[in-house]
Every structure is written in structure tokens, then in C-alpha cells.
């Protein structure tokens, strides 16, 4: 066991403030790894450890000013006992740091979850972890069907879409297996008891992922109300000339506008990884789709910024249909670079969403309502929709987010150009 102490970062320094923890309890550090960012009144400096081991307790919370030489954290020399090393396992009264201080800088990349140091330990087989990394699957989101709640490689493959949800080659219906033996297999068309189990594990997966998002991502929220009169007029005129099967819904315009806006503001289109923000080259627009019987998926509409509105509409229809029949593809489940959630159908006026990690932004859309609205100094009744943006403050500031929302609004005023 070793103590990681406040270093002296200059002859005149006698106190310092930890302004960021780059590790959390349970993390394994090697000699020379940066552990914390310390503010010395002159500059913020990343401080490395000279002891290899496992981070035990963090003794000094972010923001506290301490003397040089004060122990900041305990580093154990041994391998971590995963599941016991996280803050919940600490002695009461010893952990003085607020949760956001230790979690605030954690990269939400898949590798992080795979290392098993996340505050909630994910039980997955070693091979499932390896496969999840190869397929870029977020383990936290995968429903488990293995022994004692273990996520297996098959679960990862099913989640990634490389095997269909209905593939139960290994659970043939034979008298020996019976209904109880099959109940843990994920398949929407199963008996009610089985379905209940699936929903429960999916709920648990959503719970893990969203809890992580809320814990680790410093969200900022913006909202704005958009006048949709022009857009809906155009939509009505366009639909009149289209066969019923090809008609557009307002959501298609919103998706296209969002995709274009994301293309123009690449700071919001990409992933927060351990190396910071990484912009995605393309806009793969995640579309949140609620599933019958509960649960939610957000598959990606690939290259949405390049698609004509008609194809966005077709893509949306196709995604919804396949999401509800459990036939999404792996790339659709893992590629989304920014997500739109549209709760207008449910009557809500605005959505203040939680970002789907490792993405950095989520656009929420409420119901289109008729409002008294002033245009050019005149009051009229116009269809309006409240758009919101939840964005990762580590990646962008409100200024960027505001411009992004303004771009969407602007695009919606010229629907014919979408």
C-alpha cells in the first residue's frame, strides 16, 4: 500500500487543489500514469504516480485545497478484487469525495466498461468482453442470459445483430429443457413468462447505461421553440402528390434538419472517449424508438445528412418496423453519432433527455402545438414545436449548442431544400 501525495510542483508551492481526478477506486495504474489534475495557482498540471497498483480510496475530493505532502489517494500494490473496489464498498465516513468528482472524467468508451472498473460491475464472460470490444458493443446495454446473470458471447452477438434474436439453435424444444430452461433466452415472441424476463434484463441494461450517463456526463440543456408553419405547409403540398405509402411525416423533416445541422456542427457529432472528443466523419443519426412492451432502442440511420427527405422517411419506417420485430443490425445499434428522441406523439411539450454514451448530444422534440406566435410584428396562430438539446459539457459549451439549435430552426424554414 502506498499513499499518493500532493506533490510540490515548484519551489514556491505549498498548497494545491485537486481540480480533477483522472482515476477512480479500482482503476489499475502504472508508473507514470496521470492520476489527477492539480491547480497550483499558476496552472493546472497533470500529476503522475510513481507507484504502480490499484487505486484504493480517494482521500481528497475535487476542489479541496491541501498542503503539499497531504495524502490524496491510496494505491494498493495488489490486483483489484473487482466488485469490491468501487466506492460503495468503502467504509462509511471515509469516502469524502462527491460522486461526480470521481466519475466526471471517466471515458464512457466500451473499453472502460470492459475493464470492469465501472461503478456497477458488469458480469460478462471473458470472451463476451473480448467480442464486445471487437464489435464495439457497449456491454452495459447487453441483456444477459448466461449462468448467474453472465453476459455471454451469444448475448453480445445477438445485441450486435450478427445473429437474429430468434436464433435458438441451442435451446431446442425438447421435453427435457421445458419452459423454465428457455425463459432466459431473449425473444419477443416467447411465452409471457419469458418475455417478462427479457424485459426485466433490458430494463436493467437501460438502467445501467442511463445511470452511467447521468453520473458521468455533465449535461447542459438548451431549448428553443420553432415555428413550423412553412415546413408543414410544404409537407401538406408535397404529400398531396405522393402515394399514401410514401407520404412524409413531420418527424422526417426534423431528422433531416438535425442530420444536416450535425454535419455543420461536427463538435456535437461524435464520441467522448478516453482521448477526449472524437468527431465522427459521417452523421449516423440515432432514432430513439420505443418498443412494444417497454424498453427503448436508438438505432442509427446511416449517413442521414446525405439522404433525400423521402429516403429519410423510408429509413425511419424501416427502422421502426425492424426495431419492433427485433431485427436490427449490429451497425445500426453501435454506429449512431448523435440521437434524436421525439416524444411529440405522447403529448409532451419538451424533452430534456439523457445522452446515450459515448455520444455527446441528444436532440429532443416535443409535440407540435398551435400557439399564438408573432411574426414580423404580427400575431398569428402557428404550429410550433419545442426542440431541446442535451449536450456533453466536456465536449462543447452552450454557445456551440445554441448555434446548432439555431441551424436546425433555420433549416426547417426552407423545407424544400432539405
Amino acid at each position, binding site marked *: 500500500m502506498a499513499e499518493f501525495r500532493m506533490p510540490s510542483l515548484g519551489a514556491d508551492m505549498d498548497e494545491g487543489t485537486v481540480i480533477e481526478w483522472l482515476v477512480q477506486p479500482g482503476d489499475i495504474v502504472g508508473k507514470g500514469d496521470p492520476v489527477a489534475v492539480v491547480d497550483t495557482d499558476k496552472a493546472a498540471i497533470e500529476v503522475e504516480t510513481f507507484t504502480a497498483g490499484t487505486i484504493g480510496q480517494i482521500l481528497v475530493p475535487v476542489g479541496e485545497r491541501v498542503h503539499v505532502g497531504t495524502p490524496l489517494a491510496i494505491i494498493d500494490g495488489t490486483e483489484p478484487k473487482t466488485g469490491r473496489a468501487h466506492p460503495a464498498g468503502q467504509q462509511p465516513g471515509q469516502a469524502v469525495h462527491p460522486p461526480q468528482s470521481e466519475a466526471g472524467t471517466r471515458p464512457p468508451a466500451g473499453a472502460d466498461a470492459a475493464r470492469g472498473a465501472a461503478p456497477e460491475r458488469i458480469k460478462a*464472460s471473458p470472451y463476451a468482453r473480448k467480442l464486445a470490444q471487437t464489435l464495439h458493443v457497449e456491454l452495459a446495454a447487453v441483456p444477459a442470459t448466461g*449462468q448467474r446473470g*453472465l453476459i*455471454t458471447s451469444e448475448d453480445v452477438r445477438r445485441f450486435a445483430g450478427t445473429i437474429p434474436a430468434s436464433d435458438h439453435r441451442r*435451446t431446442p424444444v425438447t421435453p427435457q*429443457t421445458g419452459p*423454465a*430452461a428457455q425463459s*432466459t433466452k431473449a425473444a419477443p415472441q416467447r411465452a409471457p413468462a419469458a418475455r417478462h424476463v427479457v424485459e426485466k434484463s433490458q430494463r436493467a441494461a437501460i438502467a445501467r447505461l442511463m445511470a452511467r450517463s447521468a453520473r458521468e456526463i455533465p449535461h447542459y440543456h438548451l431549448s428553443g421553440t420553432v415555428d413550423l408553419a412553412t415546413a408543414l405547409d410544404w409537407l401538406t403540398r408535397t404529400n398531396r402528390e405522393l402515394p399514401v405509402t410514401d407520404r412524409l411525416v413531420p418527424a422526417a423533416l426534423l431528422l433531416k434538419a438535425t442530420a444536416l445541422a450535425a454535419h455543420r456542427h461536427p463538435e456535437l457529432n461524435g464520441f467522448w472517449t478516453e482521448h477526449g472528443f472524437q468527431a465522427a466523419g459521417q452523421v449516423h443519426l440515432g432514432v430513439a424508438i420505443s418498443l412494444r412492451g417497454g424498453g427503448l432502442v436508438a438505432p442509427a440511420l446511416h449517413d442521414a445528412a446525405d439522404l433525400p427527405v423521402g429516403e429519410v422517411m423510408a429509413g425511419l419506417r424501416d427502422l421502426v418496423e425492424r426495431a419492433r420485430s427485433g431485427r436490427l443490425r449490429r451497425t445500426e445499434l453501435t454506429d449512431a453519432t448523435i440521437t434524436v428522441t421525439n416524444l411529440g406523439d405522447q403529448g409532451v411539450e419538451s424533452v430534456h433527455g439523457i445522452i446515450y454514451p459515448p455520444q455527446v448530444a441528444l436532440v429532443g422534440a416535443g409535440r407540435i402545438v398551435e400557439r399564438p406566435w408573432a411574426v414580423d410584428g404580427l400575431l398569428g396562430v402557428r404550429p410550433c414545436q419545442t426542440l431541446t438539446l442535451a449536450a456533453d459539457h466536456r465536449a462543447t459549451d452552450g454557445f456551440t449548442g445554441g448555434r446548432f439549435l439555431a441551424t436546425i430552426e433555420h433549416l426547417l424554414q426552407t423545407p424544400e431544400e432539405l
Partner: protein
Amino acid sequence: MTTYREALREGLRDALRRDERVFLMGEDVGAYGGCFGVSLGLLEEFGPDRIRDTPLSESAFVGAGIGAAMAGLRPIVEIMTVNFSLLALDQILNNAASLRHMSGGQLGVPLVIRMTTGAGRQLAAQHSHSLEGWYAHIPGLRIVAPATLADARGMLWPALTDPDPVLLFEHGSLYNLAGEPEADGPVDIDHAAIRRPGTDVTLVTYGGTLGKTLDAAEQLAADGISAEVIDLRTLRPLDDATFIESVRRTHRAVVVDEGWRSGSLSAEISARITEQAFEDLDAPVDRVCSAEVPMPYAKHLEDAALPQPAGIVAAVRKAVNGNG
């Protein structure tokens, strides 16, 4: 058509003909033809100098075998069952296995010891145990376990050419196994064999449980589970490369071993899989072993104590499906 018993006899006959330094000794191996009939007729063919009956004194005749081997002969010593071999454990462990090391490489013991192992014939606790895992623990020994007719026929000669002691374990339930051997002549005693290829799970076994494991694999195939069956053949040194490579492909493993589970050969195999292929495992390595009791006499109790195909099938289902 031949039996396991006849295949072993052919192996002995072949070795006795090839090298006149080879001789067989043990309790009742001569006039009686061997307790299990393996050496029947060899006394008539090779004479009492080369097929020697010994008194009931395992320590003495194993010791004599060690001396003969050191003096330049190539003895094959038959100990009736592995349970009796414990009377000669001092000779096997302290002399045969150790002399190469203790003499700084100057003295080898080119000795082959044959013995019967395993249960399934209602011979109760003192004649039925599978203790080959104990011997596989000892450095300085090579442990082989023929499970097929070809191995029964072909393992003896390579064992005799080994400059160090080799223990050959014959499972008692295999003597009446009949069929056409796939190969004739000496076999490879360095490598495990894949007896049935598969993709979903690796079943590691040897000797007397190979047949049961293959039966289980057949049943599993009907359910759509493709099991790869590996016959270790040599228990020391373990050819772990073969089963590790297999586990890397199938991502699951079940070890079938008639020995007791605690501190067993199956424990060693399981540990090696975890050490070398941890990141490729999709389920915990499971083991199907004998119940940890002295082997019962009553047939239904003996059957219940031993690994059976149904138990292997259940373990595989658990590994593959996450439930039993």
C-alpha cells in the same frame, strides 16, 4: 475384429519380439495368463525367463523392475490394479521417478509399469479407483492412458523406448471393448487426439470415460450442440496445446474425469485453460467427475457415483445455454 485385451496382448507380443531385453513380470502374468487375461499364451510363446510370475509383493517386484531397467533390461511390470500400486509407491516415486534427477542425469530407469484403473465392474472400493491423476502429479514419470484399440496396441513400444519410467493405465471396463483398430503399430504418445471435431464446446477426457463422452457428444449433436471431444492419451506431460487451441475455438470446456474432483487431474486441466485461454472463455470451465466416495459395490450406486453421459450432457447444456 479385435478386443482391447487382445490389442494389449499384441502390443506385448510385438515388444517381446522386437527386443530381447524386454520381459514381463507381475502377479499371475504367466501360467494364469494375467488377472485380466492380457498375457494369456505369452508364457507358452516366450518362456518363463521372459514371462515371470512374481510373489504378492508389489514393492519388491517393482523394485526388481527398477533394478533390471538400470542394469540394461527393458522390464514391463504389471501391477494388478492402481489401488495395489500404492504398495509400490515408494519404489515408483522415490526411485523410478527420482533417480534420473538424483544421479545428475547418469542413471535412467527405462521401465514400463502397466496397471488397471477405474470402476464399472462391481469390484468395490479396493479395486476400482482412478488414481492415475496422483501419478500424473509426479515429475519424472510419463503417464499414458490408452482409450482406443489402436492406442492399446500401439502405446507400449514407444513407452519402452522412453529412457525414463512410463506408467500405462488400462481402464478395466475397456478390456472387452471390441472393434477394428484404426491403425496398427506404434502410436504417438506425445500428443492428445481430437476424437470428434466440434465447434460449440470442448470435452476433455481420456481412458475409460472417452466412450461415455463420445456418447454424450452424440446426444448433444441431436440437440444441435456440436461438441469437440479430446482424448488426452498422455496425462503427463499434458499436451495442453491441443485442448487450449480447441477451447480458443469453442470458447467453452467441460472436463470429464473418473477421478475424484478435489485436487484432481481435471482440476489441473481446468486451471490450465483458465491460465492460458481466460479471455476466450464464454462460460466457467465445468467438470464431470466421480462422486467423492469410496467406490460402492452395488451396481446402481456405482453407476450413480461415476460420470455418465447424462451428467456430461447436462454440464454441456449448462455451459452452452447458461442453464441446465
